[in-house]
């Protein structure tokens, strides 16, 4: 298994193309970060709505917690400017 992965890496590096293009890799990084942020917000959002159903006053807390992971994408954006 490990060898196969290694082999795959070698092939990818030799063949070049998208995976060795720095811009494409940066784009991939931002995309994956956005996916991660979205996944995180999915859980937080549903929990926040659940909490709000119990107590309306939690709206602001829910809002803050829900938007917290967005920063991940913005941090990933820095990568775009550095490569």
């Amino acid at each position, binding site marked *: 298994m490990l060898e196969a992965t290694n082999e795959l890496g070698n092939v990818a590096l030799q063949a070049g193309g998208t995976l060795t293009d720095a811009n494409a890799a940066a784009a991939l990084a931002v995309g994956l970060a956005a996916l991660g942020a979205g996944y995180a917000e999915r859980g937080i959002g549903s929990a926040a709505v659940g909490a709000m159903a119990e107590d309306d006053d939690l709206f*602001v807390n829910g*809002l*803050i917690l829900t*938007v*917290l992971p*967005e*920063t991940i994408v*913005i*941090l990933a*954006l*820095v990568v775009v*400017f*550095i490569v």
Partner: protein
Amino acid sequence: MLRPERMSKVSVTGSKRVIDDVIEATYEHHSLHVTDYDERYEGFSPGESLDGAETVNEKLVTVRSLESILDVEGDEADGARPIDDEALEAELADVRERVNDLNDRRDELKAEIRDREEELDRMEPFADLGIELDLLGGYDSLEVVVGEAKPEAVEATLADADGIEAFEVFAGSDIVAIFARPADGAEEGVLQDSLVGVDIALLEVPEAEASPSEYVAELEREREELQNDLDEIEAELAAVKEEAAGFLLRAEEQLTIEAEKKQAPLSFATTENAFIAEGWVPTETFSDLRAAITDAVGDHAEVEELERASFTPDGDHHTEAVADGGAEREAATDGGHATHGSDDPPVVQNNGSAAGPFELLVQGFGRPKYSEFDPTLLVFLTFPLMFGFMIGDVGYGVLYAAIGAFLYSRYDGTFRELGAVALWAGGFTILFGIYFGIDVFGYHAYQLLPGDVHWPVDGKGLSPADIDWALSFLVASVLFGLAHLNVGHILSFVSNYQQHDLKHALYEGGSWLLILNGAWVWIFSQHLPGPKPDFLFDSFSILTFGAVSFAGFPVAVGYAAIVAILLGIVLLAIGEPPELAEVLSPIVNVISYARIMAVLLAKGGMALAVNLLAFGAYIGEGGEGSFHFIFSADYLEYIQNHPEEYELVFAGITTAFDPASIGAVGVVALVGGIVVAVVGHIVVLALGVTSAGIQAVRLEYVEFFGNFYEGGGDSYLPFGYDRQYTADEE
């Protein structure tokens, strides 16, 4: 401005003979935030309600229950006027009788309708089956089962079952009646036993004389009649509501006021003949309150300012004694000033009329504590700025301001404050719209100015020609964040210094200030230039229109910055070791402000896309310049004929309309294009609130408040009532 209004703790001490008058005067003055007596004085017990409190409360309960039966919500008021006690009692009795009577009948009817419906639920499957009820049971040699199941499944199971000699299945739409003859020697209930494996919900056969379908018809008829009766009762109740709602609202208010007055002594400290009421008033209004009480009862009550709460934390050495304490205090009721508790004063935010509405945003996070800085002023200075920069469009700005003006002039309370916030946000949106080239709904209106104007700001950074601006706005966002966070950490430093000492302030505020500024000075220095992109430094010249050129701080400053970071980390490690885990947050939080530039581009891009669809656009200078909109069919043709000069992005919908030869397609395109433009801009406008608004609020709440602000203060609820439905009798 950064502090709430100063509060004074006062005590009102007097003879019980005048307790009524004192309560009346205090209530009228509406300024004393009464604190509950916590049995801290020896010989004083908590007071009891005044006589008659119970009757008032009973009436209040009656009024509220009537309001809830009639669905009175508060907007049915019919003019404020005084109401006297006798009239109240008489009318209340009358209304209660009528409403209770109607309500009882309504409940009865509802219960009867429910009975019919249950019966219907039970009978409907049998009506559907179409077999007389008396045929579904009472056999010697047959077993019968009725239930909801799929007939095929039942048949398949029974065909294989032992102990069933013969069977027949009658099926309605979703109900089956199964008749089976058990084999000789089979036990009773063999049919049910053999159906164990089938998905079947068994139904009990009801006992009724009539055939199921007739019975169902009769039940439906009865239900109909009952429903008619119920509708009549509802109409009568609505009529009563119409007539009595205004009275009920007045009565509720009157009784609430009475009840509050009667129950006031519950939070007083009392002896047999005297009482002490303690509470907070804004220091400014203290003398006014004293005058009001003295007016009412002369020298039978003593009003005294016990302390002026200072903004540093509780504890004796922090509170300022009031000058006239001394002798007068000893003369007061025995034990009256033994100790003051450590209760926190309620918070009245004091931000003036311009910044005042932004208290709404601060309170969304939490009302400031008395000992905390009130960040409202800083929110007022930064929120509209961030919002305006993110949207940056005269057209949208005017709409936001118009919505704000509407809310501000039409409503009271929260909506009015929201309106004021929207007005400020809209105003700054207009200002930044002008900055970005008099953008009106994404169109650079400066092109319409007479003469060949070259606008100094090329745009928001959406076109190939002004990509440098996008990067410059990124740097500007980050620098703004750096300044914003510095303010936060400085406030944290100051409040730690005031509440504790310099050492704490250095550990908790100073360490972060050193790390924050060290990190960013290093980033903007020439030390290790390799990975630092050029735009970090070029932006300064772009943003200042060439006035300033900045190549980064010298390498020596870079080293100094690294020393500052290390010093900050050391301070943090000594003072707050658990927070070492967050040592990167000064960098992360500042980068988080990059969202300002990101939203700017996203909103600008959306407006551009809408206009591009509707009106068509090309990029000048052979695809290297900026976006321009096309608008007319003639111009589109001209663009298409010069491909080397203009790169056509999209021809546009409305450009199919040719005034020279008005055709059906052209008119449809014109209407369609305008619909796309209007709907598109409405979407951008609405998304502007949710993205720019929420992102700006988030920067305030998470990045900014996180440094120094907790919230959680008590709100100031003065003893008294703002009459809404009743007029004062005087």
